[in-house]
């Protein structure tokens, strides 16, 4: 009986085995024109027992995962391996975090032992700021400016800038050709027709397709009603009429 109880209480300890990784989080800097990038996580079985990887999954369909040695899953004490995470960056820019979950034998289905984090920095070549300009319908409709800056060794020119809603106008001003532009947005709707949303499309000649077209928004909101502030009520900007409801 004593032996049995001892074995039962010690079983969880026997069940826990570990792979030691060089790092559980890695940060990469990708070239702006790269479509794919990979990251290797090296590991070693430093426990005294065999360790078996039962499952490995990225948390994004933009990633694929491979284990070296033709996908070897069982590692004896002292054995080493590599998990490679391949990342398809075609629709991403800026700083992106992606996760690879790794289950070891004995792990519950919803609790992988290991979370490998890949942080990828993809250069943003066309910087738009701010990405939304907005007005309240009660304020004076002064023009507002969106700054367009090119962060690249080669010039990138803005080839066109348009807005989807005729209650706004846009005027492109060149500050430094290929480097810096101002896009001046002005609401021009009449007093009974000035609330709405416009999508601003900025086209450039950027050689990298995913950064060629940029988007921003212009919004004229209804003026907030002073008596509408109650507990739990929205604290943010006042609502805007859905697009299409204003001619």
């Amino acid at each position, binding site marked *: 009986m004593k032996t*049995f109880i001892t074995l039962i209480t010690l079983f969880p300890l026997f069940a826990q085995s570990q792979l030691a990784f060089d790092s559980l989080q890695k940060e990469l800097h990708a070239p702006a024109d790269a479509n794919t990038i990979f990251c290797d996580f090296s590991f070693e079985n430093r426990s005294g027992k065999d360790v078996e990887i039962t499952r490995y999954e990225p948390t*994004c369909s933009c990633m694929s995962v491979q284990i070296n040695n033709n996908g070897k899953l069982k590692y004896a004490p002292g054995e080493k391996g590599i998990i490679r995470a391949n990342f398809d960056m075609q629709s991403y820019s800026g700083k992106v975090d992606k996760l690879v979950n790794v289950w070891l034998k004995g792990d519950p289905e919803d609790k992988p032992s290991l979370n490998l984090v890949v942080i990828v920095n993809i250069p943003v070549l066309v910087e738009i700021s701010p990405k939304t300009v907005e007005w309240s319908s009660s304020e004076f409709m002064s023009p507002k400016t969106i700054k367009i800056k090119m962060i690249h060794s080669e010039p990138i020119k803005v080839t066109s800038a348009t807005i989807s809603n005729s209650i706004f106008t846009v005027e492109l001003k060149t500050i430094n050709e290929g480097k810096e532009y101002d896009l001046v947005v002005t609401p021009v709707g009449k007093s009974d027709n000035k609330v709405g949303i416009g*999508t601003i499309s900025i086209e450039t000649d950027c050689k990298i397709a995913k950064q060629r077209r940029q988007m921003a*928004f212009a919004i004229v909101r209804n003026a907030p009603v002073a008596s509408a502030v109650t507990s*739990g009520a929205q604290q943010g*900007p006042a609502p*805007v009429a859905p*697009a299409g409801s204003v001619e």
Partner: protein
Amino acid sequence: MKALGQAALLCVITGVAGLATWKIKGSPDRTVPCEISQLKEGEICLSTVMTEWQNNVVWVDARLRSDWKKDGLPGSLLITSVNGENFDQLLEQAVPILAEGKNVVVYCSDVGCGTSLEVAKRIREFGLAPEVRALHGGWKALQQAGLIPPKP
């Protein structure tokens, strides 16, 4: 044989104790645990959304389109970058709702999924809503809380 008998007796006692616990305490709490101190930057607990934001929320589904159609939270918008979806186009379609002034909560599948954080970050960059957060625990947290209608 004696050890087997003892093992069987232990199993019976354990089973009875478990059943009694179930009867007294009720079924186990299967909600996705969420410790505010453990949240990543940009995340929010479902309990916070339900108590502090209540109806002042626009829900965004960042999963696959097929998953959103199958069992997305009723009334949620699909805005995602997975599986070749055009994020800009989906965002543009959603702007009239996002700009209504409500807080935005983005969810993907479960705790390990990182897409909701990324989508929330990209929506936040446009400054359309007062708050944009990723739901800790994702769709699973919504399901465990009984917010996803069961299949007919």
